[in-house]
């Protein structure tokens, strides 16, 4: 049982190969993809995907800031806006980024700017929560 799995972000290709199972944080709830999954297309919210190399084995977690997931006959393709393995997240840098985002939100003086800053802050907070556990 193997699932062809591709994970790409605009900067680079992070994964390409066969895995057992991938858990994807879909916009309307997490879903797991195994081999032979029905074709589907979903947007992804910010969160960690979990990659299982083997059944019952340990999961590798990769943080993703939104994007798209497509499942077709050949396998699963994730087009991520940005992706970073959870193990590589630098907690100190992240804290600094969150502070900057908070300041930006405080400074924002129109709605679109505020919405943007809020979105960014939420993404970063999700990232912190993901890194924490």
């Amino acid at each position, binding site marked *: 049982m193997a699932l062809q799995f*591709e994970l*790409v*972000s*605009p*900067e*680079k*290709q992070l994964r*390409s190969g066969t895995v057992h199972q991938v858990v994807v944080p*879909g*916009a*309307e709830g997490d879903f797991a993809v195994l081999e032979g999954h*029905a*074709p*589907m*297309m*979903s*947007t992804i919210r910010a969160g960690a995907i979990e990659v299982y190399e083997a059944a019952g084995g340990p999961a590798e977690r990769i943080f993703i800031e939104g994007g*798209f997931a*497509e499942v*077709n*006959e050949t396998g699963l*393709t994730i*087009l991520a806006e940005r992706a970073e393995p959870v193990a590589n997240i630098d907690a100190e840098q992240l804290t600094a980024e969150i502070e900057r985002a908070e300041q930006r939100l405080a400074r924002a003086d129109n709605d679109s700017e505020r919405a943007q800053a809020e979105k960014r802050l939420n993404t970063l907070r999700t990232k912190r929560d993901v890194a924490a556990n």
Partner: protein
Amino acid sequence: MASLKTLKNRISSVKSTQKITKAKKMVAAAKLRRAQEAAEAARPYAEKMGEVMASLSQRITPGPGASPLLVGTGKADVHLLVVATSDRGLAGAFNANIVKRARQTADKLIAAGKEVKFYLIGKKGRAVINRIYPGRIVHFQDFADVKNVDFLYARRVGQDLVARFREGEFDVAHYFFSKFQSALVQQPTEQQIIPVPVSSDADAERATGPIEYEPSEEAILDELLPRNVAVQIFKGLLENAASEQGASMTAMDNATRNAGDLINTLTIQYNRTRQAVITTELVEIISGAEAL
């Protein structure tokens, strides 16, 4: 025979030209590495995006509800040629090759009775296209106001294209850029970006059955289709940037070598002339002394 003074001037002018081409070659070589890395890193994403789009367009049922960005307007009368060139020369035939490729397509389309419009990115293609196809350029922009070509720039271009498409300015958009293969080889490439090209490979049959969308088909396609245009534009611009540096490096290397050859020839000529002048002077002095 040229005088000693003119020869000397020519040699020094060729030498200073050689200095410039050599410097430009070094600059291009330094920039090439970074541009090449960026272009190669962006490829998988754009390719996967293209695959996803192709598989989507196979499944979608053509109908009034289907997004025209995916299935087209049903016509192919007005073609928009998006031609990406660079802002600077000194890159050999880099810009000329892209324009040539675009001209081939344009001529073919015009011969078939289609209307052709041009959308130009980068300064270097403008003069030529304006001369050959006057009045057909609908938009022109260069890179004067951007330091680095980033995804935001490509997204603005993409949004503009999608807006023009929605207003019915054109039916089909082709994108011309130069694909980077190596510092010596750049491939002028044509790609259809609107509507999404239907893949013609044999396994088109395999894609059957409906596809499930989360949250909804419209929501996903509305976001994904314009994004695909931007991603393809971005990929082309990165490929172009790498190709430009590669072409520039090769062209400047040739120019430096040619200047070197020219200097050698001129130096030999200069020395011969100098010897001839000395011999003549000696002959004059000696024959003068003998006459006394």
